[in-house]
Structure formats: structure tokens, C-alpha cells
């Protein structure tokens, strides 16, 4: 009997190890950390001369320490879980030490540490952590400009403002730990929430999510709505890759908005013949290109176009295709046939060829780029929407709405469409990466925006002809494209897991 109990106990403990999201995240963190540590080591030593690059080597050392420490924490967590089934408070306190890793820019360790130190996490806590992390990252990236010969006129006031907002986020984080619970928050938090919403103008959409979430909890008593909100977001926040993706996307968004004030556009577009093809340095973190333009500034400003075109080229066909698909799915066979067969014709033309044809006919600029990429994507969205509408319109609540005498149009757009949106959202996030790549591809082919305008495809194009001599010119924009597309895909996966009812 005793034996059976201990066996059950062991199984339960093993199970707790397997289901612990914190343990999964710990493993995820040390692996990523290790990979970057190795990359730093690789780059700190020049293989030709044997010289050691002091700054990169220093970075390597700090990252190596945080990685080793992370491995220690992970092993301790495993031990805790196997022995007692829960992570001990002592282990959790190690997280405070690991927070120091943030100073070296180890955002993975930082995010993990924040997650570890708090045993009972509300959704707001996670939001607040990421809000703060995003703000810190924005500050860190912008402050690189201090090494430049000069900064833009608006640099100091905006950095001051960003710093103050960052402090405010820190205060909010502390307040949330102290006062916010799973389904309730004190009434006075409304003001904090409103302030958070206001700061989201800087592009830090985590603040928007946090503010909205807090507002719901302070104002609403609708328990089921909050439950749904909490469950959905808990599913997403449990998913480390999805959160990382979302973090990177929102960071890019925040950077592309704040760069308007903290970066000097002239450094990204004006030629500087005295600084041609400089290797990465403090003043030019990613080096300079063949015209002496700062690649770092170019990539930062390029995020704006990539995101704008990527988002617009997803939203536009999403709305048009969604509308057509909804009509086709809801109304008679006749309408359905007409719309869908016409869209099938459009579908039969390869998207990128259609885009090239449109650009060639109407000229290359941002608006035409969006149109060109949108047109080809309409049919796929229409198909997704139509399938959902066909399914949802058979539900009972649609029948009851019909029985109540609602008009077809009202039923379609008030009842059916809102309940068919989840797959559309998932599809959009998954295809937005494709749109980003298409934008860059067209620019790479010389069909996108003008060549001097900082756009990731343009930057990569310049880099591609210097692959051998100045490889950093291609590596950094390439990485930026990869990371953004990967982030959208990770987030899309996370959203699908969270929104798909079948996976419950």
C-alpha cells in the first residue's frame, strides 16, 4: 500500500515536471542564451590575426555567466519539481539575481527571471513585465545614438520622456504585484489604466493590452468575459515562443514610432563619402554601407516600411476578402458561385507575378506596393471567411436571430462574422510574414520603393553585392527580416493554439 502511494507520488512529481511551463521556459532560455553566447565568442576572436575584440569578448563573458547561472537555476528547478512537485521559494528568489542579466541585454533571461520570481502570475503581471522589457529595449536601442557624432534635435527630450514612461511602467509593475488579483483590481487602478493607454501612443502595445485588461477588471463585473480574456491570454503567455515573437513585433513597432524622434533620418539616407564601408563600431553598430549611410539607422527606419506594408497588405485583403467571403458564404448559391468563381480566376494568377505586373504598370511606391501585394491575397482570405460563415450560419443562435426577425445583413455582420473572426486573425498573423518577405523581395528586385529609402529588402540588396568583403551589410538586414517573419509565425501559432476551440 505504501509502495503504491509512493509510486503514485513519483508519477505525480514526474507529471508536474512535464507540465511545468516555467521549467520549459527555463530550458528554452538557457538554450537560446547559450546559442547567443557562442555567437558572441565566435565574433570576439579574429581568426586571421588571433586578436580578441574586447567589447564583444566582454559581452561574451557576461552572457556566459548568465547562461551558466541559468543552467544552475534550471537544474535546481528540476530537482525541486522531482522532489516536491513545486518550485521552492528559494529557487524563485534566484530569479532576482538573474534579473541582472538584463543589463547585458539578455532579454530571455530577464523575461524568464520576471516569470520565475512571481509564483502566482496574473495576466496583468506578464503584460506589465513585457511592457517594461519593451520600454527598456527601446531605450537601449535608442541610446546607441549617443555614440554618434551628433544626435537629432528631439533626441534628449524624447529620451527623457521615454525614461519617465519606463519608470512609470516599473511602478505599475510593482503596483500590480501588490494589488491586482486574478479577477479583480482596486477601483483607483482605472487612472493607472488610462495613463497606460495614453503611453501606448509611443508604440508599446503591451501597455495598451495591460491598460485594457486593467480597465476591464476595475470597471466590469462580467465574470465570464474576464474568464475568457484570462484563459485566452494565459494560453498565449504560457507559450514562450509566441511571447518572444510578440515581444519582437511590438518592439519593432515601438522602435519605428519612437525612431521618428530619437534617430536622425539624414544618417540613414544622406550619403557620407568620408565613412564608406566602415565595419561595425560604437558609432555605427551595424557598420556603414557603400554610400556611408549608417546601416543601424537604416534598419531601424526600415522597420517602419516593412511593418506598414506588411500590416496593410494583410489588413486590406483581409477586409475585402473577408467581406466577399462572408457574402458568398451567407447568401444563395448564385451569389456564392459568382463571387467565388471570379476570385478563383484571380487565385489562378501567381501572386508575386501579379504584384510585379501591377508595380511595372503603375510605378514603384509604397501605396502601389500595398495594392500590388493585397490584390493577389484577396481570394485566400475570402475562402477562409466563406468556410467559417458556412459553418457558423448553421448554429442555433443564427436561427434564433432569424426567428426574431433580424435582417439578413444584421445577422451576417452582427452574429455570423464576429463568430468567424478567430481563424481570420490566425491566418492574418501567419500570412503577414509572407507579406513582409514579399515587400523585401520586390525591393530586392528593384521593384519596391526607391533604392535610397531604407527598406529591409533594399538594404539587403546593397549587402548582397558585398557578401564577401563586408558581409555584415547583408547579415543584419537578413536577420531583421528573418526575425520579424519568424516572430509573426510564432505569434500566429500561439494565437491559433489559443483561439482554436478544437484544441481545448
Amino acid at each position, binding site marked *: 500500500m505504501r509502495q503504491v502511494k509512493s509510486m503514485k507520488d513519483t508519477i505525480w512529481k514526474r507529471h508536474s515536471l512535464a507540465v511545468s511551463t516555467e521549467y520549459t521556459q527555463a530550458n528554452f532560455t538557457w538554450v537560446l542564451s547559450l546559442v547567443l553566447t557562442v555567437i558572441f565568442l565566435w565574433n570576439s576572436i579574429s581568426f586571421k590575426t588571433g586578436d580578441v575584440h574586447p567589447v564583444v569578448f566582454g559581452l561574451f563573458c557576461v552572457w556566459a555567466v548568465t547562461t551558466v547561472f541559468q543552467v544552475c537555476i534550471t537544474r535546481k528547478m528540476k530537482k525541486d519539481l522531482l522532489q516536491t512537485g513545486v518550485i521552492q521559494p528559494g529557487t524563485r528568489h534566484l530569479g532576482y539575481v538573474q534579473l541582472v542579466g538584463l543589463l547585458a541585454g539578455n532579454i530571455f533571461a530577464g523575461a524568464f527571471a520576471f516569470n520565475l520570481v512571481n509564483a502566482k502570475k496574473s495576466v496583468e503581471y506578464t503584460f506589465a513585465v513585457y511592457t517594461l522589457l519593451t520600454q527598456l529595449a527601446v531605450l537601449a536601442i535608442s541610446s546607441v545614438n549617443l555614440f554618434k557624432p551628433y544626435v537629432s534635435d528631439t533626441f534628449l527630450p524624447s*529620451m527623457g520622456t521615454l525614461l519617465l514612461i519606463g519608470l512609470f511602467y516599473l511602478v505599475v509593475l510593482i503596483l500590480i504585484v501588490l494589488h491586482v488579483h486574478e479577477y479583480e483590481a482596486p477601483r483607483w487602478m482605472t487612472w493607472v489604466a488610462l495613463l497606460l493607454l495614453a503611453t501606448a501612443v509611443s508604440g508599446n502595445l503591451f501597455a495598451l493590452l495591460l491598460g485594457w485588461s486593467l480597465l476591464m477588471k476595475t470597471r466590469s463585473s462580467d465574470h465570464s468575459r474576464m474568464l475568457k480574456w484570462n484563459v485566452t491570454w494565459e494560453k498565449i503567455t504560457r507559450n514562450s515562443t509566441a511571447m518572444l515573437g510578440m515581444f519582437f513585433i511590438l518592439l519593432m513597432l515601438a522602435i519605428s514610432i519612437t525612431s521618428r524622434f530619437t534617430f536622425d533620418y539624414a544618417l540613414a539616407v544622406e550619403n557620407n563619402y568620408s565613412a564608406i564601408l566602415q565595419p561595425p563600431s560604437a558609432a555605427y553598430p551595424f557598420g556603414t554601407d557603400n554610400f556611408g549611410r549608417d546601416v543601424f539607422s537604416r534598419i531601424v527606419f526600415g522597420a517602419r516600411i516593412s511593418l506598414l506594408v506588411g500590416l496593410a497588405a494583410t489588413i486590406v485583403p483581409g477586409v475585402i476578402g473577408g467581406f466577399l467571403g462572408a457574402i458568398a458564404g451567407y447568401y444563395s448559391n448564385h451569389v456564392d458561385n459568382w463571387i467565388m468563381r471570379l476570385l478563383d480566376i484571380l487565385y489562378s494568377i501567381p501572386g508575386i507575378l501579379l504584384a510585379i505586373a501591377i508595380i511595372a504598370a503603375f510605378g514603384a511606391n509604397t501605396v502601389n506596393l500595398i495594392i500590388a501585394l493585397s490584390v493577389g491575397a484577396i481570394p485566400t482570405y475570402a475562402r477562409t471567411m466563406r468556410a467559417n460563415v458556412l459553418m457558423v450560419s448553421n448554429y442555433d443562435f443564427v436561427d434564433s436571430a432569424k426567428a426574431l426577425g433580424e435582417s439578413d445583413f444584421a445577422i451576417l455582420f452582427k452574429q455570423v462574422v464576429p463568430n468567424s473572426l478567430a481563424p481570420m486573425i490566425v491566418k492574418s498573423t501567419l500570412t503577414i510574414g509572407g507579406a513582409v518577405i514579399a515587400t523585401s523581395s520586390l525591393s530586392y528586385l528593384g521593384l519596391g520603393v526607391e533604392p535610397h529609402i531604407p527598406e529591409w529588402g533594399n538594404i539587403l540588396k546593397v549587402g548582397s553585392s558585398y557578401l*564577401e568583403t563586408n558581409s555584415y551589410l547583408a547579415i543584419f538586414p537578413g536577420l531583421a527580416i528573418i526575425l520579424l517573419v519568424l516572430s509573426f509565425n510564432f505569434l500566429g501559432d500561439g494565437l491559433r493554439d489559443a483561439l482554436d476551440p478544437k484544441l481545448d
Partner: protein
Amino acid sequence: MGKKLLSLTLLLVLVLAGCVQTKSEVESEGKGTDTKGGPEEKVKIEVLGMGSGEEDLNIVRDQLIKNGFDVKLNIQPDYGTFKAQQEAGNYDLALSSWTTVTGNPDYAVRALFKSDGANSLVDDEKVDELIDQASTETAEDYTNTYKQLEQRLVAEKAYIAPLYNSFKAQGVNKKVLNPDTVRLAKSRAIAWETIDFNDAAKRTADPLVTQQAIGDLTSLDPIKGNDGSINTLNTNMYVRLVNLTDDDKVVPDGSLSYNYAMAEGNSDYYFLLRNDINFAAVSDGKAVDTGERVGAEDVVFSLNRAKDKDSVPDHRTYSLHEHIKNAEIVTDLSELEKATVSGGDETVQAALENGLDTKLSALVDDKTKADNSQGSYQVVKVTTTEPFPQVLNYLAHQSAGIVSEKQVKSINTYDVATFDVDKDIPYGDQRTVTEGAGYNNQLYASGPYILVKKNDYQADFVKNPAYRAGSEFEPKISAVTVRFIEDSDSALSALRNGEIHLFNGVPETKYDLVEKDDNLLLQKSDSNAVTYLQFNTAGRTVSDSENLRKAILFSINQDEFLNYYHGNKKKAYSTLSPLVDTGNELIADQNQVNEFLEAYRKE
């Protein structure tokens, strides 16, 4: 705690503010008081160019924007679309380039700037006058005339804004080819016949693989094309009366003549022809000796059709030869005895006989009867419309290549006036040598090589078996393959991985890659290629306003171009710069830009 943090932050910001310079501080330090004036509306300039000139366009754009213009770039993917945009007039400035392949200054300006020139957009009496005047002068005298012409074109009227003069750079695979046998000439296209492998055993086994950018060949009839698609090919397929050396001297080496002479008066030119070259044709994919000699009749036929605008449809080179009045066979030996050479006492005959083993004893008008070893020769006399010493450079150009009178007449049976491009197939049409159903190779080559066939990727040449066989000018390598690789970076890769042996046109920014490669040798020399901005001369604001054109002209800073190209370019003032040292220089001047812009605004 919050208060402490806040005050700490404020302190930090203050400290930072102390040691960081803002943009406006830096700018006002550098320039003193900025007098850019009020917020006047910027002048919008549309710059047209090709994708291959993207770097130059970017530099021009940057310079114009820094001088207060608003710039719109119109970048076209290839020459065809560029030309279409140019003809439609959709530009203010067009990025253009010109290479003087004949190596004489007249060619550098005649077609480009004379009001009746084939590529001219300029209509200016004084320019016409100066070009004509310089063409009759010898090298000592024309420098000053060309200097005036340049000043008229650039400083006075601003018809063009010069950018730079390029170098020529050629990468050679020295592991495969003997680099001493590979020539790099300033003007003329590369001669294939001298090129040899390191390993002589490979001459018949392997082809020489070289590259050119354009695969769509204008025409293999020498007079019907003058562009990058055929210049090298036709140069190697047709022999000429004279050739240019690597530094642009006119010589008979490697040509159809033993010697040439310019008679007193600078209007009569005599050429003593050799009898050891036969036309080659292609039969079953191989070159065969047709047994038909390249003789004076063919020379006369070729030159007369070269100067005659109506000899073929789409005649693209008659303006180069418009100074030829007549070409004829000389049969009277006493004419050569009487005439003396220009600037000397020597008779033309003596000049022509110079270095020959067997002296002239008879002149024949039938090429089959010429037998040089017995003293019977053929002599051709070219007369110019006016004294024009530079005609020799034009005779060295590929468009003066000698074609077979018999073969060309037998193919060009159509009526020129009613020529139908869909029905009539003229001599040298690329359709006849393109693989496929339309293949019907009727070329007769007088030069060292003949084209067998081509497709979209390459053209295959084989050596002419009857081209000076046994002499040092006999082609060394039996077959030549020309790969069509448009992108210079791809061509460079092809050179480095051994796919091609020779790459003419290594980009300036990639010299170090070739130099560092153990298998490769970089040959560099001056070239006659000049890149400039052509102003639109009809229907645009820049066409009407000289002030606006000058404002743009003085915005151009050639030093920045030199910097961008790591010093691998030279300054230029016009297309004449590489040929004539006129001493003119364009100096960027922002004050002048502002003055001219102000003047323009008052117009």
C-alpha cells in the same frame, strides 16, 4: 523611492544633455549663419537612368537634394525601356554614358552633339561650327577648338553635366590563359586571335570562354550596329583596313593592309592589301574555307555601303563614314609614284612598300589575279569629302569591317525602301544564327573567327581556317565561346569559379577581389568611357531655362564620385576628356547654385 528615481533620472538627462551635441548645434557650428532663405518651393527634377546605374543615380540624387532640389528617380530595368522613356521625354536629366571606340575626338562629339547627329539632342549652331572646324585640324591645332567646344557645351550652355571618366579593367584567369597574350586596349574591342592558353595542347581541345552583357545581337552586318552587343563580335569576325593599337595609334598590324599612306592634302588615303585571307563560311557546324579571297572589290563594296545611308534599312553607322567621298581600286602604278605622303617627300609607293619582301610591280583590279609573291598587288584609295585625317580611326572601327560583296548581294535581295522586317531576312540577322527552326547560317567572315550559332546563353565561334594561316596572326585558339551574363557580379563569380576565362568590365568596387585571387590577374588601363548627365532639351523646364541647368550643373561634385569608386574613376569635363587634354574642370559650387536658382526663380 519614486522621488529619488525621478530626481536621479532628471540628473542623468541633464548630464547627458551636457555632453551630447544635437544636429542643429553641429550644423550651425559648421556653416556659421545659414542663408538658405525662406521656405521657397523646391524645384522638382526627374532623373532617368537604368538599374545598372543605380549607384550613380543615388549620388546625383543626394547631391541635388543637398543643394535644395527635390528629386524623383525614374529607374528603368534595361536599355530598351530606358530608351523608350527617353524618347517619350519623361525626364529632366538622363544618366548617359559614351565610349569613344574609335579613339578619335571627332567621334566623341559628332554623333552626340552635332544638330544632325544620330544620338544628338543638341541644336546649337556654334557647337556645329566648332565640331566641323576641329575635324579638319590636326592634333596640334584642335586642342584649342575642342576646349572652346567643351566650354560651350558645359559652362556656357549646360547641355550636359559631366560625372566621370572610367577605367577599363579586365580579369584574366592566369592559370588557364597566358596573360601576356591578352590585350587590353583603350578604345578598340579585344582581339581574340592573339590569346593563347598556357598549355598549347589545349588550343584545339578547349574553347576560350569569355563574356559579354548583352545577348540580343543587333546585327552581324557590321554597318547595322554600333553597340555593346556586337562590337567585340563583329571586330573579331570582320577584318578592316587598319587597326588601333592599345593606346589608339592607327597601324596596319592585324589588318587587311600591309601598309597605308596619307597623301599630301590629307584627302587621299592609300591601302596596300594582302592576299592571304579568305572568307570563311559555316557548314555543318564547322568553319570552312570558301576559297573566296578578301580583296579590293570587297573593300570598295564595304566602304561604299558604309557611307551610304540607303544601302540597308536601319543603317546605324553611316554618320561615322559620312566623310568618305569615294573608295576605288587603283590600277595605275604611276599614281602611287607621283603622289607624296602628307608632310614628307617620300612617295606613296615607297610608303606602301615599306618592309615588303617583294616590291610592287603590278596593280590588278581582280582579286583572284593578285599574287603578292610575284609582285602583283591590289591597292585601294579612299577619298574624303574634305581634309579629314581622323577618317583612319573610323576605318579602324568595326563598322568598317570588310564583308563579301558576292555573299551580301546574294542575300540582301530585298528593296530597301519597302523592307519588311517580318518577311525579309537581311544579311547578319541574328535569327539566322539562333538555334532552332530559323537557323540558316549564311555569314561570310573575313576576320579571324566566325559565329557558328547562338542561343540566349552563349554564342559559339570557331576560327577562320583561311585567316593568315601560318603567320603570327593566325588565331591561336580554335574555338571561342561568349557567355551572355548581364549582371557584372555574376560575371565576376563566373570568372572566379573558372566558368569563364576572361571578364572585361570588373566593377570598380571589386578590384580587390580579383587582385586577391591567386588564379586571377587584373589588367587595368585608361578608357574612353565617360558618364554624364544629359539634359532634356525639349519640352521641360530645364530645356528652356539655362539658369536652372547651370544650377544643376554646379551641384554636381565629381570628387564624391571619385570617393565612392575608391578613386577608380577620373574627372571628366565632356566626352572629349579622355582624348584631348583641354584643361577644363567642373568644380561644384553651392554659391553658384544658389545664384542660378535665384535667377531661375526670377524668370
